[in-house]
């Protein structure tokens, strides 16, 4: 069994996107057209100067490329692996207009950040201590990015996180074949060398909230989302029903007991997490994996390339099936669905049941909003349970309390969280020191918060300012 587990981790969970070879990187980097007002830069929530870092790779300045990336995105090492670049930078590449393959931006980015990690030195250092302290709740991408940029501005930054390891979903929730846990932890280890304090295993309650508000000059809430949403159907509490994030966390912990644990699994949901869970179920040795979604294929929020990946792993995708109950006496034996169709935007259920036999059900219908934490800090929520903020400053309704990441956007990509962390760091600084202007050490990353303004095209004879 141990040998089988070892084989599974090696063969099925090595990273899907392999690093570029030297020749591939050379050819790919020299293909980049070095666009001026480049659409890939605009498409990146952190506005990494993609053409610039690719040109740096092409001119053999790989560490310089790494600096360009990490300046704009402190989490650039993980984003190179987990970003859905097909719908972000690579999806925006001008080569599409030429009916040619876009530049492999993510793999080039990975080449640069891998080099930084091999070099073992961050391309920037903490700013001189300014005597002020910021508490960050949540060590996921938003919190980690915020802490890093605050350190560069000279703040003491302490992160509080309820889990034993930092990284949030990067460490616990990203499909292991996209990025393994080790990579996430390595990224943070290097980043936190800026002098970030991390208090792990700390549950935030009213007492702690009061203390943080009292002891710190500002608080950044990057708490992500709360527990998994439940199906709300009979049989849901039977042994064998697990939520997707708990399942993925076990895979990422490389729990040997997860290998070969199921002969037939049904995954319920239509998003990218459902796909991740289904593919990882197949890759941990489940011979029959069925993904069932209650609406049509076109309504699935999972990206096409993710669905194709799962299908390649042998996952059967069924649509227009809503779960009515989980079957089984002492443990799960199957799921009873009803066929649905949309009538005027509403789902109408068929009477006849469809039963899919299984010994495990993975529920992946999203996470609930955490409606409790913001209140402890006096911050108000929106009606949908997200924390209310001013989008430009990420200020909440409570004084000196800021928020970002999934808790604010309802659940987006790692890169969106990293962008929020960066925005929050500068916003905290501007709130505590309204007259602050970025100094030389911080000017570049601050310029990437809203994207660099491309120099205007000026008429001949005019001046540019």
């Amino acid at each position: 069994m141990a040998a089988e587990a070892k084989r599974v981790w090696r063969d099925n969970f090595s990273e899907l996107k392999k690093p570029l070879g030297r020749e591939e990187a050379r050819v790919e980097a020299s293909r980049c057209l070095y666009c001026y007002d480049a659409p890939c830069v605009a498409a990146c929530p952190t506005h990494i100067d993609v053409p610039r870092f690719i040109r740096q790779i092409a001119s053999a300045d790989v560490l310089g490329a790494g600096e360009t990336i990490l300046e704009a995105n402190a989490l650039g090492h993980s984003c190179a692996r987990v970003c859905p670049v097909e719908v972000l930078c690579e999806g925006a590449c001008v080569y599409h207009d030429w009916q040619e393959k876009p530049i492999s931006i993510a793999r080039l980015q990975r080449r640069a950040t891998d080099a930084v990690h091999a070099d073992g030195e961050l391309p920037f250092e903490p700013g001189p201590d300014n005597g002020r302290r910021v508490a960050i709740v949540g060590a996921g991408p938003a919190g980690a990015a915020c802490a890093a940029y605050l350190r560069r501005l000279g703040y003491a930054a302490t992160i509080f996180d309820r889990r034993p390891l930092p990284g949030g979903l990067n460490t616990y929730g990203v499909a292991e074949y996209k990025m393994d846990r080790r990579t996430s932890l390595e990224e943070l280890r290097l980043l936190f060398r800026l002098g970030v304090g991390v208090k792990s295993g700390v549950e935030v309650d009213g007492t702690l909230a009061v203390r943080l508000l009292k002891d710190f000059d500002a608080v950044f809430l990057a708490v992500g989302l709360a527990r998994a949403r439940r199906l709300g159907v009979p049989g849901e509490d039977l042994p064998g029903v697990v939520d997707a994030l708990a399942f993925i966390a076990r895979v990422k912990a490389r729990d040997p007991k997860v290998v070969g644990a199921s002969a037939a699994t049904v995954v319920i949901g239509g998003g990218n997490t459902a796909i991740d869970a289904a593919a990882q179920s197949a890759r941990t040795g489940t011979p029959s994996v069925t993904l069932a979604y209650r609406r049509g294929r076109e309504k699935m929020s999972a990206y096409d390339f993710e669905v194709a990946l799962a299908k390649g792993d042998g996952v059967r995708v069924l649509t227009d099936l809503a779960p009515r109950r989980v079957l089984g006496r002492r443990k799960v034996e199957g799921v009873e669905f009803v066929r649905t169709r949309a009538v005027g935007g509403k789902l109408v259920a068929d009477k006849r049941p469809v039963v899919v036999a299984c010994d495990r059900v993975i529920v992946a219908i999203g996470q609930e909003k955490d409606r409790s934490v913001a209140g402890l800090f006096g911050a108000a929520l929106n009606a949908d349970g997200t924390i209310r903020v001013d989008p430009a400053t990420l200020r909440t309704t409570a004084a000196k309390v800021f928020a970002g990441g999934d808790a604010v956007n309802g659940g987006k990509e790692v890169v969106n969280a990293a962008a929020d962390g960066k925005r929050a760091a500068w916003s905290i600084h501007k709130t505590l020191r309204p007259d602050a202007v970025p100094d030389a050490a911080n000017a570049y990353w601050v310029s990437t918060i809203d994207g660099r303004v491309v120099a205007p095209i000026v008429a001949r004879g005019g001046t540019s300012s």
Partner: protein
Amino acid sequence: MKTRTKPDLSADCAGIKSPNPFWLASAPPTNSGAQVMRAFEYGWGGAVWKTLGQDPPVVNVTSRYGAMDLGGTKIAGFNNIELITDRPLETNLREIYEVKKRFGDRAVVASLMVPCERAAWHDIVKKVQDAGCDGLELNFGCPHGMSERGMGAAVGQVPDYVKMVTEFVKEKAKVPVLVKLTPNVADVRFPARAAKAGGADGVSLINTINSLMGVDVETLVPKFAVGGKAAHGGYCGPAVKPIALNMVAQIANDGETRGLPISGIGGISTWSDAIEFMLLGAANVQLCTAVMHHGFRIVEDLEAGLRGWMRRKGFAKLSDFVGRSAPDIVEWKHLNLHHKTVASIDKESCIGCDACYVACNDTTHQCIAVDRRRGNRKPHVVTDDCVGCNLCSLVCPVEGCITMTEVETGLKPLTWEQYVKNGLKGYGEVYRRH
């Protein structure tokens, strides 16, 4: 956490100071104050203004530039027939003044070209100095159009003229004077010596090389023609870099001009190109073609690359490495005849394309063999026959697959000069001659 050292990039070429060694060469990118200011906003350390002349300004033709692409690479070589500035002198002077007022820390150098008359040079030198420029660059290099009018390369090709005009300028110059040299000469050391003799504070090189971009074989009309006719132009861009490097090294190592400050120009596109010029003796560098290809923004990559390299190499300032490699450029007769390298092919990374085999077998020394008998596509080097010429490693498409390895011969170093002095005795055969 370890503190990162911050190398000092400030440069000083013949007394003209700039916060970094990257200047825009005198060319279209420095045609106007608006352009130069935008370049300075991006971080350029200096700019040599598009060459100023006497009023009335020249008239240019339309269709001015041509390029040579190589495979998928755009603009491997670049050609132009544009003349000096076609804007009134007064306009340029006013803009130089405005640029200096706004960017006092950057180097603004006025490139000049007027007829070879003392009064003409005195007049323009006074005017540009009054405008506030930090230095002068005498354009003795432009190879097209202006040379037909007795200026540009027509001056640079005659050392006596170079010396005479430099003297005219030095009579009135209060700021450092660089003489820009043309490569269209048999030996660039002669005009360089003449510039020094005339009192130049430094030289800048190379200007462009005489060139013709080709003929369209379908229409039989010259490429990039002006109404069906073409004039020769000036060639530049990545393709000319080795020619420029040689000339820079020649001047850096020449007994008469050693120590004369050099501003290096010619095919510089990247930070490492710039470093090569500086290692061979250039105090700073000037760029044009790469900027015309990609815009002013490339200075950010140049600076980042230079800074990162200096940090890795432990250099704190430019003078720590300027000229460091120049002494290693010697005459052929000083090379060691007893030095031996042979090629070796890495079986692991070899892809069996035979590029090395055919090149070696047909054109050089027949020392790469392929043994097909056991289905083996991969060639190997017959080490005893290898003369260490490098050709196989140059044609090999796989980086790092063919390496040239030094072989210990156990022989004392012997140069051609010593060999001749020894009466052609004492050479131990380091390679097999057929």
